[in-house]
């Protein structure tokens, strides 16, 4: 389903990145990193008219030749980025949305762990399993 799932901290450093296939990991790292440009732009353009409830889901960030990159930003500015193979046409916007919702829930559950220190890399197995599920579905 998804090719790469990334969680990025407020300060724009990666908390968690998982990719399939793993051999081209570096490329995905770059893809996720560069997508932050668009994320930041989107956040800052909304931030101007305050009190607007920001839509967490940012939609398609930018299409590359082979992949589509979607973004999602929580209210604490933690960013989720999902990279999807662009040949996979079955994925509708709605499915991506639910995927992000699921990811957000998993992140919040992981955050509830009292031993997790904010800003650390995510090592939670539960969280990883959920992400794996997202990556491997069908």
């Amino acid at each position, binding site marked *: 389903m998804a090719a790469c799932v990334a969680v990025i901290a407020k*300060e724009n*450093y990666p908390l968690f*990145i998982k990719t399939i296939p793993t051999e081209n*990991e570096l490329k995905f790292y770059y893809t996720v990193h560069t997508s*932050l440009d668009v994320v930041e732009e989107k956040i800052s353009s909304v931030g101007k008219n305050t009190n607007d409830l920001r839509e967490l889901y940012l939609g398609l960030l930018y299409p590359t*030749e082979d992949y589509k990159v979607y973004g999602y930003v929580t209210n604490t500015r933690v960013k989720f980025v999902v990279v999807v193979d662009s040949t996979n046409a079955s994925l509708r916007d709605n499915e991506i949305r639910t995927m992000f919702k699921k990811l957000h829930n998993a992140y919040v559950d992981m955050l509830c762990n009292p031993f997790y220190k904010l800003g650390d890399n995510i090592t939670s197995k539960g969280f990883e399993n959920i992400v794996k599920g997202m990556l491997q579905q069908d």
Partner: protein
Amino acid sequence: MHKHLQEVPAVVVVFFDLDWDEPLWKERQMECSTRVEIVRNSLQGRNTKIAVVLIQKNAPLPPGEDLMAAERAVSLCSTCDISAKSLYVLPHTDHLIGYTMRLENAFYEQAQAYYHQEARKVKSHKDFLNKTTHQLLFVRHQFKSAFFNELKQDSNTAIKHYKQAYGYILDLRMHDTNMLEIKTVAGFINYKICRLSFQHNAPLDAIAQFRKHIDFFKSKTGIPELSFEHSAWMSKQFHVFGDLFDEAIKLGLTAIQTQHPGFYFQQAANHAIFRKQLCQGLCMQPEEMKSANEIEEFLGKTEFYGQRKWRQEQQSIEPSDLHKEREGILALQTKERQLDHSLLIIPLLSSAVTQFRKYKSPRMKRFLMVQMGEEYYHAKDHVKALILLNKVMWDYRAERWWKLLTSILGTSLKCAYLTAKVQEYVSNCMELIGRYSQCSENEKIRIQMNLVRVMSHTVPEAEPDLDQSCVEKASALWAEFRSHPTSFTLEMHGLIPFIETKACFVHETVSADNKIIVEVCLRVGCPFPVRLSKLLVLFTNQKYNPHCVLTDGRGISAKSDGGVDSPSDLYLKPNEPRVFSFSFIPFSEDVGEQLEISSLAVEMGNESGCSAMLRWTGGGGETILQPVGPAKPIIRPTPSGQPVDWAAFIVNPVVKIIPRKALLEVKVEHEPPCLLNEVYILTIHVENKESADIHNVKFSLGLQDLEEGQDATTQVSADVSSFEEATLSSHCKTDVGSLKKGQKISKCFYVKCLHVASRVFVAQVNYDVGVRVDDQTLICSCKAEEVISLPTVRPFDVSIKLESLKFETIEAVHADDPFLLTTDIVCSSPWPIEMKNSSLHLSEFIHTAGDKFESQIAEVQLNKSDCGAECICLVASSCVQPSVSLGTYTLEWKRKTANSESLPYVSTTLPLPTVNIEYIPITVQVALPAFGRVKTLLPLCYSVRNRTPYVQEVQISMESTDNFMFSGNKQTQFRVLPSQEYKLHYNFFPLVAGQVTLPRLHLDMMRYPSTMDEIISKMLPTHIFIRPIGKIQPV
């Protein structure tokens, strides 16, 4: 297409000098027609229009008038075989521009007509075609007509035809042999469509068309052996589209962050990179390279774009000659091999970088710069690669993308190795073996070994996966490095090296007689222990720098000699932080200053070989990774002998040097509150409790928080008599000299406050004392302070009133009539006040009614809330001004306490009120006895005095009462001469006893009707005491 653009003209124009009235008309006409014939022959029967322009010297006559011209024109047309419409005349006269414009339009129309005709011709061809056999020609014809339309400048029709042509292409049967041809043509048509779409300001159409195009052809790779051709084609498509897009933007189109030419350039570059990889994979096997001639043979010009030369004139799908086919492919591969791909990729990347910079995508830009760097690396331009990579590394570091950083560092390290740039090599190594590097453990070990080699001035091992020839070149450079000592400084700010440092002053403040202790914590994150050669702490004040140097001379590769933790052992084991401590005594001139760590430096290697000085600015610590936790925990000196907790070690790069604590007892004795204006005495008692004599003792008293501006309302002095001087400062200092051990001394200060307020004074004692620290006597200057808060209150409140002689408060005084001035002095000071004297300073219009003024309160002592009063009778002389200030009232006083004997009296001056002086034309007086008796005659004489220089007419009436019987005029009228008196005599006969109201005298003046009565009634007594008769005395 070239044919139509450059070779086949639409209109040929023959310019010819010929006037209508040319004498040799026939010859000239012949000459002209032959020329036209020549042109026509050379056109070989194409439909090109021919026009003739006659250049004439004379202005033309209006049409229809010049018969000869019309006739000759017809004949010229017929000889030249052109229509009359194609004959023009260009008179070589004044309006040349106008004529040429008209000619231009006319030619343009002709050209359009030509292209229209051509297009029609093509269309007519098309009708003969059928879909099965002439599939290819469909495309050709559509393209042709579109192209003619474009030349006709009818772009809407053109785009329609291009689209149709494109549609036909998609319908074509594709197989490996014609794939290249189809793709070439499709790319061409696509280019045309996109271009026209942009021209029509329909960028979305263009983008959609391009996407469709790419999606369709993406998978049409063609022969696997020549798949690089496909990549090249894709790259070209993207590149061309990017160029188109960019051009459109230059013409005013606005792009957005997610849709701009940069993406297309990037894709183009990606495909170019892919092409390079394919080329490396496919074309490197054949050992023998084709010679240039052979290549030429296979790759010459072809009749149609995109066809293989060796396969021309064959329409069949299967390649006919397998050998020839193979040779052809080989030739193509050889050609591909000779191509410098990096030269293609880098410009694409750099134009993408410009675009991304324009559209606010810094990260994308950096990514592309990394790609560029890598490409430079592949192109063996290692220096450029190194520069580029170093530029972007910082950002990845700041954003903590370690994985990306590590990969960039790896490339950078290779470049640094190949160019033998020691400094970069070392800094890259340091980062790669650091904590956050994502290298594998083995890799780290290898890199550290290399680092150690470099630092001990030997050649490091080559990085893996390097080109052999480059390595050889590099080893020559490294040999040169070996030949002479190298030393350099690396700024660690912004790097994340394997050595981490933290420095800390153990105390926030240090007094001048104590040692400053600096602790430096070092930690290494590399797999093996390292030995540093020097550790330095540099301060903002460089005088201290020599105190904090630690040198280890054992060389970088020396192993630990067991005696760990010997002070000069800079041997650091991985993940075992060590703390080094320095201590030194502050200089006395730096007391009150701040001392800051400007940088930390660590030296590796030795100066005779290769040495690297690593400098951290400030107190070290994680400059990039700021701690998230709460700031400013308490600093504790690190206990020795225990493992150091790196995280708990706090960075504190600032210490304040404060003066030594004074061992003096300072007491201030005084009796608050201070009274306003008085000279207030403060006694400072000091006892020397130091273990030695103190020198240079200075007392000072001044206001606290007093900045540059002096407070004019407060005066401080050490001498009573100085208060008589005009200016006094609010700060006072006295020198006392030396004090022996245990000696006591007292000193008086005097303060005068001119405002009611609470003030804070600081009594300071400064002195020098010698202190022994480590066999060294330090002269410390110390300071003892005592803060005194001093409220100031008013000593007394004075209320001044004006009263009439009847003790009634009055607002205004009458000229020449006496009035009373009473002063009530209420003492509000908690201390008794002794009045020395009071004095009155009157203005020129006021004088005392009686004798000279004599103080009535002199030598009076007032306790708290006692009241002293004075009453003075004054007379105002008549004057011009309506209101007059009476003058001032001055009191001389001081407090009366046990130790106030020596204090001088101070005088407080109060202003007297300002009064209105009224001028009354007459006065009425009556001499009233102190009392009367019932039924005893009481004679009264009212005297009316005229103060004016005029005769005044006065009317008088006496009111009757029940209390008195009286005789005299009840109502009368009389005149009073100027400055004279008129006496009215009455005999009153009291009827009742007690305080009795007198009968009222009403007075009216002719000059001032009905105004005087009230004024007069105030002048006259209203009551009189009447005694009863008393008992008849017993006889």
